[in-house]
């Protein structure tokens, strides 16, 4: 049910695929963090704050009956409009703190902290 074709204009689809292969190859070493989902419901991003390892792909899914967007305040990532059940994925490769919001309902704010992956310095 991924809508990467629709919204993943970025190389996220490729990265997801690559990540899957890598995980299957190197699961025991846990090189890559598990991918995460953020649900958009009741005009909130849930969970509102997450911390992930670099290389993690985060997928947002809109569970509201109203369209939303996922836009980094720094413009590092920006989804197209997500209608009900539409998804958007982004792979975080650079450690740092990312604030994002819905550009249609800007009171909806959330953040993601990306930590260096194990072995990365």
């Amino acid at each position, binding site marked *: 049910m991924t809508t990467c074709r629709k919204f993943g204009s970025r190389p996220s689809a490729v990265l997801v695929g690559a990540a899957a292969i890598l995980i299957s190859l190197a699961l025991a070493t846990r090189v890559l963090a598990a991918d995460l989902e953020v649900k958009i419901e*009741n005009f909130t991003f849930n969970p509102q704050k997450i911390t992930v390892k670099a290389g993690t792909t985060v997928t947002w899914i809109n569970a509201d009956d109203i*369209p939303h967007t996922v*836009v980094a305040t720094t413009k590092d990532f920006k989804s197209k*409009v997500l*209608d009900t059940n539409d998804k958007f994925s982004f792979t975080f490769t650079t450690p740092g703190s990312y604030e994002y919001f819905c550009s*249609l*309902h800007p009171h909806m704010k959330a953040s993601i902290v990306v930590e260096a992956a194990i072995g990365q310095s």
Partner: protein
Amino acid sequence: LTTTSKYERDGDGVSRRKVLECMTWTGTGLLWTLTGGVPRSLGLIGEAVAADTTGLTFLQISDSHIGFDKAANPHTSATLEEAIAKVKSLPIKPSFMIHTGDISHLSKVAEFDEADKIISLARLDVHYVPGEHDVIDEQHKLYVERYGKGAKGAGWYSFDANGVHFIGLVNVVDLKAGGMGNLGAAQLEWLEADLKSRTASTPIVVFAHIPLWAVYPTWGWGTEDSVRALELLRGFGSVTVLNGHIHQIMQKVEGNVTFHTANSTAFPQPAPGSAPSPGPLKVADDKLRTLLGITDVTFKPGQKRLAVIDRPLQGEGKAS
């Protein structure tokens, strides 16, 4: 559903100028009459009205959300058609219509086409402002090309009709994280210049999608920099602000300014704070049209408070 904030007017403010004697809400449309710049009583929709029609009558519709097909109302085209039928059945033909945004649900060409097809059945000029659902595409090209010809920015403009100065504002683009609606510096500068040549006695009608007053900031129901716009309007004797966005009727009178929000033609939303979030409110099928009903808002000379009567399409009306 209707919630009302009532404020005493200043003793010699709006009422002395006999600004708004009567307004009639339909839930599907708000009917106004202004004669020689002074609003006149029009009576209630459905009554035979023998009023002097030399003034100006206009109508507001809002939030048609064409393309929305979820549980709260899978038939938004049908309810817009009902709204337009209502407009056509009015005893006094309005001079024009304003649409306070969210014409479409997802800014799709087909949705705009469908809305235009239905709204054109009213055979009235329509003055639009965009809602956030109409400017989803990059650079809001679709909206501006279709509705914003000759307008500034993302579609703000002004025009005059029968001595009344109308100002359509855009507060749904370039929204800032953590904020609400946004007018922006360029538009405020334009507004200041636009108002500069008007005399203080000119009645002003401002319309925009998101309320220009803080209805409920927790849900983003307000406009960050509306205070600056209202400062520019302070010197005018009669200012009426018409908004949509919240899909329910609210009103407030503050000094020289009367604020109103209109019902949607598509679906209701919860009253502020009465639900975990805003959004389409699913009600029983036989209740939907009771929430799209008629509400009359009446200003009577000499009365300090405005009177609101909700007249749902089904059920008894009552004063709030």
